[in-house]
């Protein structure tokens, strides 16, 4: 053990790190654990100029405070690993950041298959392990893989973190599965490596990004001088591209642009064109030239990498629409890319569409129920059996207005809950929910072949079809065509029940 003491000139606080407990090295930083592992010291390999230092001071100071020192600021501790202080290493004069150590959930408990053949137990859960079908199926211990529902949860956390940065006018500039830790067991995600933040017009980026996540326009103009007006550098719009790639990879386990098209015999040039100037969605509706070549895929990439078996529509209509906006409309037109907020909203609505798979061996356990075809789990093929109630949500602006459809539905399953954000249209399930708004207001249950909604907390729930009030503690059978007014307030929604028949 070789403990080194360091002191912050900014805050006067002292820190320690163990120069023998090396936690990792990147292109920019070397990371060391504190002796008790409660924080890390991230040493910059290169000397930081005065502008970089000024930026770092703002990141640990003003920017941090603007996000964390507000009502509900604690929430952000869970989705960011944000540096808290700056120190100088006495022996070398190197600048280093102090940052919290990631939560326990972000470290592998079991690691890889066959008694952890790769030796990754205890290491951090870099997103890449979960973003590829090959890694999941060939290497990762089954107990680490988690359920598909949690991958939606991870994406929600990621979108929310990016949304918050963008709302503050900041761009991460190097979003990738290396810089977002994930936990598919709890559905958590944390954005790390915040030190590269880009502030438009103030602090330019240091890195152009990680291969696979660099926006096409950045790659295309890489060889222009930095001062050239035509050169594109990382910014909020390029973050949006990287976020879309991440979400696509976490829900479909393949890369949206890495298809079979070959542009140049020279690998470097080919890759540059493939991800840059000539980037093309592997599922482009009309230009099919970049479809993955199934014969070239590894058996462990399948079936997920085969877009004929797992088209992006299996992620549900809301996400599928955004995938197309990102990788068809917005791929080469950055201003058309969906925002982080768009993603969060679509993901949250998608959570209401999922069903548990009745096959206990299904690797994904959950899937988006698609009632336009014969409902079945797209991952394992198991058909949905029996009757499934689908609640179609309607809203009105004020009491005197008619109800309008909302393009939002809730697929019912046993023990599923109804929440205040389903009842009232002014409540959104995000970081601003109050403790009361997180409480379920009722639940669904299948009893003797009949579906019931059991009201727990709704004080003005009304069965509109039969003109009956259902008080808390009461229940109502869900039948086709039934209309329920969830609340008599202006913000209250009306649901229309649709019974869908499975196999």
């Amino acid at each position, binding site marked *: 053990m070789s403990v080194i003491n360091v002191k912050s000139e900014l805050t006067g606080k002292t820190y320690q790190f163990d120069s023998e407990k090396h936690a990792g*090295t*990147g*292109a*920019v930083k070397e990371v060391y654990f504190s002796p008790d592992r409660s924080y890390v010291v991230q040493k910059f*390999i*290169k000397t930081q100029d005065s502008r970089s230092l000024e930026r770092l001071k703002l990141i640990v100071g003003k920017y941090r405070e603007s996000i964390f020192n507000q009502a509900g600021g604690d929430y952000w501790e869970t989705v960011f690993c944000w540096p808290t202080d700056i120190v100088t290493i006495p022996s070398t004069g190197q600048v280093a950041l102090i940052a919290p150590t990631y939560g326990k959930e972000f470290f592998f408990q079991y690691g890889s298959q066959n008694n952890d*053949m*790769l*030796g*990754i137990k205890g*290491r951090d859960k*870099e997103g*890449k*392990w979960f973003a*590829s079908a*090959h*890694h999941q199926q*060939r*290497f990762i211990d089954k107990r680490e893989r988690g359920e598909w529902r949690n991958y939606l949860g991870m994406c929600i956390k990621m979108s929310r973190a990016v949304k918050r940065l963008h709302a503050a006018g900041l761009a991460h500039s*190097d979003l*990738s599965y*290396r810089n977002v830790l994930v936990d598919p067991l709890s559905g958590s995600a944390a954005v790390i490596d915040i030190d590269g933040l880009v502030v438009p017009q103030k602090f*330019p*980026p*240091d*890195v*152009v*990004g*990680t*291969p696979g996540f*660099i926006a096409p326009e950045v790659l295309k103009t*890489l*060889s*222009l*001088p*930095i001062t*050239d007006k035509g050169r594109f*550098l990382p910014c909020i719009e390029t973050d949006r591209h990287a976020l879309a790639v991440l979400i696509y990879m976490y829900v479909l386990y393949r890369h949206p642009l890495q298809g*079979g098209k*070959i542009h*140049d*015999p*020279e*690998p*470097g040039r*080919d*890759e540059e064109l493939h991800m840059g100037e000539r980037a093309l969605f592997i599922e482009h509706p009309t230009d099919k030239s970049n479809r993955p*070549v199934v*014969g*070239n895929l*590894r058996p462990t990439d399948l079936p997920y990498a085969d877009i004929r078996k797992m088209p992006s529509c299996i992620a549900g209509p809301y996400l599928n629409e955004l995938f197309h906006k990102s990788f068809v409309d917005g791929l080469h037109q950055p201003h058309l890319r969906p925002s982080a907020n768009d993603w969060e909203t679509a993901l949250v609505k998608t959570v209401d569409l999922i069903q548990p798979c009745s096959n206990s061996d299904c690797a994904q356990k959950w899937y988006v129920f698609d009632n336009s075809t014969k409902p079945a789990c797209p991952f394992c093929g198991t058909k949905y059996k029996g009757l499934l109630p689908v609640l179609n949500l309607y809203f009105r602006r004020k009491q005197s207005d008619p109800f309008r459809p909302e393009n939002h539905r809730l697929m019912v399953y046993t023990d599923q809950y109804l929440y205040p954000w389903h009842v009232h249209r002014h409540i959104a399930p995000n970081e601003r929910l109050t403790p009361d708004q997180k409480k379920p207001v009722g639940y669904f249950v299948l009893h003797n072949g009949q579906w019931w909604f059991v009201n727990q907390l709704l004080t003005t729930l009304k069965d509109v079809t039969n003109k009956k009030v259902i008080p808390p503690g009461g229940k109502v059978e869900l039948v086709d065509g039934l209309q329920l007014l969830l609340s008599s307030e202006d913000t209250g929604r009306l649901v229309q029940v649709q019974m869908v028949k499975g196999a």
Partner: protein
Amino acid sequence: MRRLPVYLVLDASGSMSGEPIQAVNNGVQMLVSALRQDPQALETAYLSVITFDSSAHELVPLTDLPSFQAPNVTASGVTAMGEALELVANCARRDVIKASGTQKADWRPMVFIMTDGMPTDDFEKGLARFKQEKWGAIVACAVNDADTDILKKIAPESVVALDTADSAAMSAFFKWVTASIGLSSKSVQNGKELEGLDQLPPPPPEIQVVV
């Protein structure tokens, strides 16, 4: 999936015997373990070990990381570096997949050459053959008092030196090789491609850059 072929070309002549060759063996072992823990490298990197003593040997042909078994390199004989250069070039020509039909090309192969001596064979002949292949990064590492001028002919922009061949220095070298293979983020450059050592992470203090 585009593969990244990596060739380790290691001096196993008599002068490396004892601690140095042991440190090389440990270094290769460490390199493989570390790369297996890196999901990006695990997917793309393929590793081969070529050694040279009085002749050159393909000890481990290009192998994916999960199947790779670290060899036990023993040291004896003289320094057939020219033959090693020829062998690695022949291996690369045989192994590296070129683009054809729907098959994507492999990345340009990386080569790490380590020696503590002077070539005792026809170096120029081997060098000429080596230069015929297209390589990605080439790093030549001089251990103790190897001739760095010779190494510069192999890797003009990227010769490094280890003053000692002890386990600490070797370990630092192999860690740096690991980081070089696993490097991910691209720095913002002012218009030109990085060459030589600039495309790799900065070497640790145990490694001197020979200019």
